[in-house]
């Protein structure tokens, strides 16, 4: 099957504003690499999860797919068409197919507009429906996300975090998109509501045939919903595999560390020794060699000298680690 989204070598660098002389003094201009040669494919109808710590570049990647930020280089193809070279008119049309649900339901809705206005504006701008038809469509959208029709006359401040997230989802659905990038859609809502929002997204995917790119900072949220999981570290994808495979057989020490860090249902079960040490390094001065080496229990001198390439382990399992054989070895895994 041809992928819905293809990303090739996507790179994003920001110049950093330092002291006022930095631009003048030689060698002081610094750049932050948010994305470094990212490749990935998203198949139609799948739930693709992108996991990583803050600063790993996962949000930037999600935004770059929609061209909310302009990548420095690389390619993003949507149904084979290059998104990064689209002109303004084509891009506007493409945005009916590519939508986004944001992380913070408290800042993602314009506080000055009623819910009906927020949704109605989308229908108006894209010429989807006007007047009575638009009102009917707004009611339909609210119903789709489990909100009553009266919600249309209220302002975002009258709703709880979970309800606001539903409104954000309804707004993304208003254009009837093919793919929704959900940037940590549940990390800012109460734990009791997280499952409801995740279930809503799953339900919508079934009913509307959506493709989802789910961005998350821990594996536990995406464990039971994903078809495929990619793990990011400092702007690079370090492991990318079908969900069942990655959870059964993680081959990057960072992936294993993330799994060990997830809260467990059996607290007395033996802990994985692969727990990650320390904080992620600054993306302004990544360590030489493999970016993960300072925090890795498996690292040796080779890891500190050269960056590992993304290796294919057969099937569709890829990993960026010299030591993937030892990481996957069950004899060593619990040492």
């Amino acid at each position, binding site marked *: 099957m041809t992928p819905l989204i293809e990303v090739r070598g996507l790179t994003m660098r920001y110049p950093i504003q330092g002291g006022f002389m930095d631009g003048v003094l030689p060698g002081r201009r610094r750049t932050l690499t948010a994305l470094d040669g990212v490749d990935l494919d998203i198949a139609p109808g799948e739930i693709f999860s992108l996991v990583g710590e803050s600063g790993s570049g996962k949000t930037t990647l999600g935004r770059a797919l929609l061209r909310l930020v302009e990548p420095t280089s690389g390619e993003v193809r949507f149904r084979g068409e290059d998104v990064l070279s689209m002109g303004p008119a084509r891009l*506007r049309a493409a945005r009916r197919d590519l939508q986004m649900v*944001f992380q913070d339901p408290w800042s993602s809705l314009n506080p000055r507009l009623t819910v009906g206005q927020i949704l109605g504006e989308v229908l108006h701008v894209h010429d989807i429906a006007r007047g009575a038809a638009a009102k009917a469509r707004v009611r339909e959208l609210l119903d789709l996300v489990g909100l009553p029709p009266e919600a249309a006359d209220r302002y975002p401040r009258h709703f709880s975090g979970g309800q606001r997230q539903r409104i954000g989802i309804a*707004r993304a659905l208003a254009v009837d998109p093919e793919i929704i990038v959900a940037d940590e859609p549940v990390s800012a809502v109460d734990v009791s509501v997280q499952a409801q929002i995740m279930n809503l997204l799953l339900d919508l995917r079934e009913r509307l045939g959506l493709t989802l790119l789910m961005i998350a900072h821990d594996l536990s949220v995406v464990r039971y919903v994903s078809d495929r999981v990619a793990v990011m570290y400092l702007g690079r994808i370090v492991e990318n595999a079908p969900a069942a495979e990655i959870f059964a057989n993680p081959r990057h020490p960072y992936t294993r560390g993330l799994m060990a860090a997830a809260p467990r249902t059996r607290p007395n079960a033996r802990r994985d020794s692969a727990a990650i040490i320390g904080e992620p390094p600054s993306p302004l001065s990544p360590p030489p060699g493999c970016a993960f080496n300072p925090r890795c229990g498996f690292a040796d001198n080779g890891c500190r000298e050269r960056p590992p390439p993304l290796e294919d382990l057969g099937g569709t399992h890829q990993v960026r680690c010299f030591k993937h054989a030892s990481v996957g070895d069950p004899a060593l895994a619990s040492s």
Partner: protein
Amino acid sequence: MTEEHAASTLPSRRLPSLMGRGRLSALVGQRTALVAGAVMISAIVLVSVMAPVISPYDPVDQDLRNALQPPSWTHLFGTDNFGRDIFTRVIYAAQVDLRIGFLCVFFPWVLGTILGGIAGYAGGVFDTLIMRTVDTFTAFPFLVMAIGVIAILGPGVTSMYIALTLAGWSMYARIVRAEVLVAKRSEYVLAARALGFSHTRIMLRHVLPNVITPTIIFAMTDIVLVILSTTTLAFLGLGLPPPAPTWGTMIAEGKSFIFTAWWMVTLPGLAIVLVGISLSLFGDGVADWLRERE
């Protein structure tokens, strides 16, 4: 997935409508300043508009036989050196002074909001150009710049508008730019971009309504300063030419008679104080109310 659950936790709408009776009484209880200020300003505006009905005298016609009369029942505020009734001149002057004061806040507010909005939203070269200009304008003391501009353009109301707009816009630009920079990064603006909305739509419908309140709050505190500045400029002879009455020119004319006819200087001065107090009360009240609403 429980749709019923989501529906039942919707809070009911408890806020009374803004136009409702309950709202006003709540204001009287909590916002004495706002109400007192509004009542005082309304009274001043009403008296100045009704001036021809209230006063039997003309503000400009001279009556030299009755010059320099102290306050009495026939001339409440006394008369000036040309025999003109000072009370009449004070209430006619209110029309001019309030209009100039209001417009001298309004024009800089509009100009500053537009330029600050462009600087913040467009960024890059626009931002640099506009904000360096703001810095330049901010570096001049307010009155010095106003006097300088009027000196170039010649005295008059139009010059006053231009001068005070040039002297006052930069603060508004600064406030709006800072607010726009915050709003521009908000997720609702990102969402609007993701939905393919035009820049004009995003600016006017999503950014501007969310950044305008702080500028109104600032304008409310600025208005007193501006009214005082316009009377100061008039006092310095840079406002309306005589014989049209404004409080500043009346005080300027009266200053040579301060020891013989105290009422010529003092009573127009009291009018300025009264307007200053009512605008302070009103402005603070509005500012507090807007802050609370944010």
